[in-house]
């Protein structure tokens, strides 16, 4: 019981993550690994946000890469065309994503299940089309270069630097998401996930809370998109595309719906597996698809919740035996 309480506490999750970010570089044989890990942290940030919407509030978004794209292009277009410094463009992009989510979310979140999935899919496709077609601003399908991030005279560049910067932002994002779970807002989201009627009857404004979760998820995705664009110094509309949206949803589901650590693990799996599977050459995608299917069959609740349940069961039998 004690052990389970420790495992479930948010400090435990934060501590595990901080230790991982701090210690992983000791095992890195080359600079390339810093880059892959930074990609994991950035994807994980977007996945954590999406998990608040999908895992806690139980609302699906198949267009979340749209917000990722808005964040990415904000730090590309802002400095290049409008003379806004990159850090301010990141903040403006997040604000723009939040406002768009607020405006679009109001009518769209009335829909449920499959209908909501299709409507959000449409939103994502719309953003990708705009980014592809407005080539005077966005460079079109070929993408556009992104100015380096400069903070107080410090030029943020290099894989190792970005590893630490993205790791720090991920820690912050994780802390905020973990905070939310056991508060009036977190309880309202989880309640409406399980029963909307019952939530309304105890006074929870279901529409307003769904909208809040949508806006939070959009802001997370936008910040992640900005970080990726700034790290890569280049951005293409693919980052806002449908495939990336599906990838984000897969991260949340494979890692474990509703689990903050799960979203991070899911991101790690989906970013690193393709790198590991290059040994299979032309069968790479086949093996990737097969592995994801196996994960879903054998760890149906997602990697983190399933492993946690197995571990808790072990502890119980040991205590009993």
């Amino acid at each position: 019981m004690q052990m389970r309480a420790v495992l479930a506490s948010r400090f435990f999750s934060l501590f595990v993550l901080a230790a991982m970010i701090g210690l992983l570089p000791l095992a890195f044989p080359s600079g390339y690994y810093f880059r892959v890990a930074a990609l994991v942290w950035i994807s994980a940030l977007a996945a954590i946000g999406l998990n608040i919407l999908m895992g806690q509030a139980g609302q699906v978004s198949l267009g979340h890469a749209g917000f990722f794209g808005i964040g990415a292009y904000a730090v590309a277009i802002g400095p290049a065309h409008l003379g806004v410094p990159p850090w301010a463009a990141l903040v403006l992009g997040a604000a723009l994503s939040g406002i768009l989510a607020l405006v679009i979310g109001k009518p769209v979140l009335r829909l449920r299940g499959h209908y909501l999935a299709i409507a959000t899919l449409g939103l994502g496709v719309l953003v990708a089309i705009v980014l592809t077609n407005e080539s005077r601003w966005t460079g079109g399908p070929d993408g556009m270069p992104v100015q380096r991030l400069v903070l107080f005279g410090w030029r943020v560049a290099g894989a190792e630097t970005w590893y630490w910067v993205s790791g720090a932002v991920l820690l912050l994002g994780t802390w905020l998401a973990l905070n939310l779970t056991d508060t009036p807002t977190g309880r309202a989201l989880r309640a409406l996930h399980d029963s909307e009627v019952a939530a309304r009857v105890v006074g929870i404004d279901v529409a307003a809370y769904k909208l809040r979760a949508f806006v939070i998820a959009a802001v997370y995705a936008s910040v992640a998109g900005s970080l990726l664009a700034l790290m890569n110094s280049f951005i293409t509309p693919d980052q806002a595309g449908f495939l990336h949206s599906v990838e984000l949803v897969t991260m949340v589901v494979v890692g474990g719906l509703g689990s903050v650590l799960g979203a991070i693990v899911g991101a790690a799996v989906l970013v690193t597996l393709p790198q590991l599977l290059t040994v299979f050459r032309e069968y790479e995608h086949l093996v990737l698809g097969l592995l994801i299917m196996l994960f879903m069959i054998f760890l149906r609740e997602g990697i983190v919740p399933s492993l946690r349940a197995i571990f808790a069961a072990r502890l119980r039998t040991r205590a009993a035996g």
Partner: protein
Amino acid sequence: MSLLVAQDLGIAFGGVVAVDGVSFSAAPGQVLSIIGPNGAGKTTLFNLVSGLYRARRGRVTLNGEDVTGAQPQVLAAKGLSRTFQNLQVFGRMTACENVMAGRHLRERRSLAADLFRLPAVRRQNRETRAAAEELLAFVRLGERGDTPAGALPYGALKRLEIARALAPEPKALLLDEPAAGCNAVETTEIDRLIRAVADRGVAVVLVEHDMKLVMKISDRILVLDGGRPLAEGTPAEVRANPDVIRAYLGPQHGREAAHA
């Protein structure tokens, strides 16, 4: 003085009239039961009063204020709460969290404060938890607070719903078949709970099929049949009403029972 008043409520679904001209009034500290055969419109009536359905005609007033057509969350803020016949617990949350969610309206709510988990949020969380634990003890679930609601047995879930419905500190409480599917011991427990809730000054409206429970606990009874009011009165009056007997047992029995 009546707290919750329904006047001439009516609704139809695709031409089928489910509730037709039903009125009732519930007073603080009293138990009003609504009975009738299956399909009489009892649950529909509850859904109308609690704002889940929009009435085609009629009026609902709560504490003298017209609340016809108000959303459930608005009604909750004005002091109306309910339970569900087909359980609507938050299955992935613990029993305690279910009741804590029920305290929503009693909490200060700020997204920013919640995200940063400010000291005020933590303090309030402790207060909410304490209030929830008190309610869990009241429905005799004090030991089960940390159990996921989805893992609780049926009878416990019935009581958990009552605890959650009481969490907003309602003035009026609608209970939809709280004893359905409960064994004799559990029914006695529900009986005790309803009486205790009414004694706190809550206006209780009860839909229930267990006639022993209804006759024992009710101050007044409203009988519905085919969506229409059939009879109203004290338990003794309703029991002696030939129309009621006929509706429940069929016409020939009605005559015999009336003579008996």
